[in-house]
C-alpha cells in the first residue's frame, strides 16, 4: 500500500490551513484559494506531489487539471522534489552590473551543479529580479533574501547550508 501523503501532524495543519484559506473568499469562490492552497501543500511537503494537488483540487471543488495548470504556470511551485536548499540567483540587469553572472559561475563551480539542475542538497536556478537591485548581487535560499553578496559573504552562507 502506498504511504499516506501526510503524517497526522501534517494532516492537521493542512486541514486547518485549507479551512482558513477558504474563509477568505466568497462561498461560491473557493477555487480562488488555489495559490495559497498550493503554497500550503508545498510548505508541508517541500514540493507538490500529484496526489497532493488532487487533494487541493478536491477541497477547492475544481478538477485536478486546474490545479496542475496553475502549479505549472508559476515558477515557485516545485512539480518535482527539489534539493534541500533551493538557491535562486538573480541575474537581471542591475545585479548583472554588480557581477551576478560571475557569482553564479562561482556557485556552479563550488556546488558542482550547473544552473537549472538539482541534487539531493541543492537546486540552483537563475531567476529574475528579486527587488534587491539596490543591494546587488543577491539570491534567495528557500525564499530568504541574501543581499550585497561578496565572495566572503557567500562562502559564509554556503558553509551554513549543511
Amino acid at each position, binding site marked *: 500500500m502506498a504511504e499516506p501523503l501526510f503524517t497526522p501532524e501534517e494532516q492537521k495543519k493542512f486541514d486547518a490551513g485549507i479551512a482558513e484559506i477558504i474563509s477568505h473568499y466568497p462561498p461560491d*469562490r473557493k*477555487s480562488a484559494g488555489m495559490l495559497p492552497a498550493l503554497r500550503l501543500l508545498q510548505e508541508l511537503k517541500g514540493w507538490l506531489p500529484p496526489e497532493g494537488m488532487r487533494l487541493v483540487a478536491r477541497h477547492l471543488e475544481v478538477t485536478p487539471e486546474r490545479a496542475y495548470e496553475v502549479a505549472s504556470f508559476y515558477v515557485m511551485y516545485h512539480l518535482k522534489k527539489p534539493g534541500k536548499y533551493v538557491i535562486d540567483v538573480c541575474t*537581471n540587469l542591475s545585479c548583472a552590473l554588480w557581477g551576478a553572472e560571475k557569482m553564479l559561475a562561482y556557485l556552479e563551480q563550488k556546488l558542482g551543479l550547473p544552473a537549472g539542475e538539482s541534487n539531493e542538497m541543492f537546486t540552483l536556478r537563475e531567476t529574475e529580479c528579486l527587488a534587491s*537591485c539596490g543591494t546587488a548581487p543577491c539570491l*534567495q535560499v528557500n525564499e530568504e533574501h541574501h543581499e550585497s553578496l561578496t565572495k566572503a559573504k557567500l562562502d559564509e552562507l554556503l558553509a551554513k547550508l549543511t
Partner: protein
Amino acid sequence: MASTTAFEPIISGAWGQPKSWTLEHYRKRGGYEALKKALELAPAAIIDEVKKSNLRGRGGAGFPTGLKWSFVPKDSPKPKYLAVNADESEPGTFKDRYILELDPHMMLEGIAIASYALGVHTCYIYIRGEFKFPAERTQAAINEAYAAGIFGKKMMGKDFQLDCYVVRGAGAYICGEETALLESLEGKKGWPRLKPPFPAVVGLFGCPTVVNNVETLASVPHVFSRGADWYAKLGTDKSGGTRLVCLSGTVNRPGVYEVDMNTTITQLIFDDKFGRGLPAGRKVKAVIPGGSSAPVLGADELDVALEFEALKVKQTMAGSGGVIVMDDSSCMVRCLWRVARFYAEESCGQCTPCREGTPWQTRLLRKLEEGRGEPSDLELLSNVASSIAPYPPIGLGNTICALGDAAALPTHSFLMRFRAEFEAHIHEKKCPFGDKPWGAFGDWS
C-alpha cells in the same frame, strides 16, 4: 532646483527607526489620524480630495488615483473590492518592499481610507511570492489593525466592516499587470484580460475592483493629514506629492530615495544625498529611468525631472521609479539582451506577437553579442520589436497587455541611441568589451 527649501520625506521618513513597522510607532507619529479625519467626510468627498491632491499611481502607469476611484459605479448591487498591487517585479524596482517591511501601517491606513471611500468591505494585498519577510511584516501589521479596531467589524467605532487578507503570488512578473493580478487572485494562471471592461467596473469575481500600488496607497493618508492642497503643492502641476525612486546599477550609492518630483536624473545619480556618482574614471553611458520597460536615455539626456510629464516629453516614462545606471564600460548589446531575455521568459504566451517576438528578439541579440550578427540583423530586430509594439510614441502595442510594449520599448530605444555599438559588434565580429561587458562593478569579488 529641488532642494532650496528643506525637503521632508513623507513616505520614507520613519525608515531606519527602531520598530518603525509597529502600530505603536506609527501612532506616535500621528498614524491613523488621517483615517479619523477621512471618516468624518462623506465617501464622495474623500474621492474629491484625492482628485484635488493630484496623486497619481506609483505602479507604473501614473494614472490619477482619484479619477480611478471615481470610475467605480456607486449604485452597483455587487460587492466591491480593493486589490493592492504588491507584486513589485519590474526589474530595477525595489521600493514597495521597504514600505511593507518598514512602514506597513502607512499603506494599511491608505487601504482603510480607500475602502471607506469606495464602499469596499474586502481587500486583498497581493504580495509577490518571493517576498516572504515583507509578507510577514504586513500580516503582523494587519493583525495589529484588527486588534485595534481599525479592520474588522467596525472601523474606529464607525459601522463599517473591512476585512483585509494577504495573498502571496508564486513567481510570475505578469501578475503585476492588474488584470493578470485579478486572475491570479481568482486562483488561476496569470493571463491578462482584454480591456475594456476595466477592473473598476468588472474586476475581481466580476465585481467592481480598484487595483492600486503599495506606494500609491501609502501616499493617501498624507492627503488627509495635511490636506489635498498641501499634498498637491509638494509636487508639480499635474502630479502631487513626493515619490520614491530606486537607484541601481553602476553608482556608488544605490538605494531607495524619496525625492521632490523636480529632482533630475543627474541630481539623483551625482548628489551627495543620493547616488554619489560613479566610480573614479567612469562616466554615465545610459540610464533606464522607470524600470526596465522604460525606454533608455543617453548621457546627454539626464537633466530631466523624474516625473511623469517631463519623462513623457523625452519619449520615455517614469514607470515604477526604477532608475538603472550603466557606465561607459558596459556593453549595450549585452544589457539589452539580458532585458530582452526577461520579457521572453515572462511573456504569458496569449498573444502571438509577444509570444513569438520576445524570444526572437532574444535570439537576435544573443547572435549580435556573440559576434555572429549580420548587417541585416539590426533591421530585422527593429522589425520584430515593431511587430510587438511600434515606437515612438509609447503605447502603440498590438497586444492584450502592456508587457508587449515593455518588451519592445527597450529594443527600440537601445537601437536608436546606441546603434553604433550594435554595428561595432557586427563589424568586429565580437563584443568590443570582451569578457567585461558589465561595466565598472561587473567583476564580482
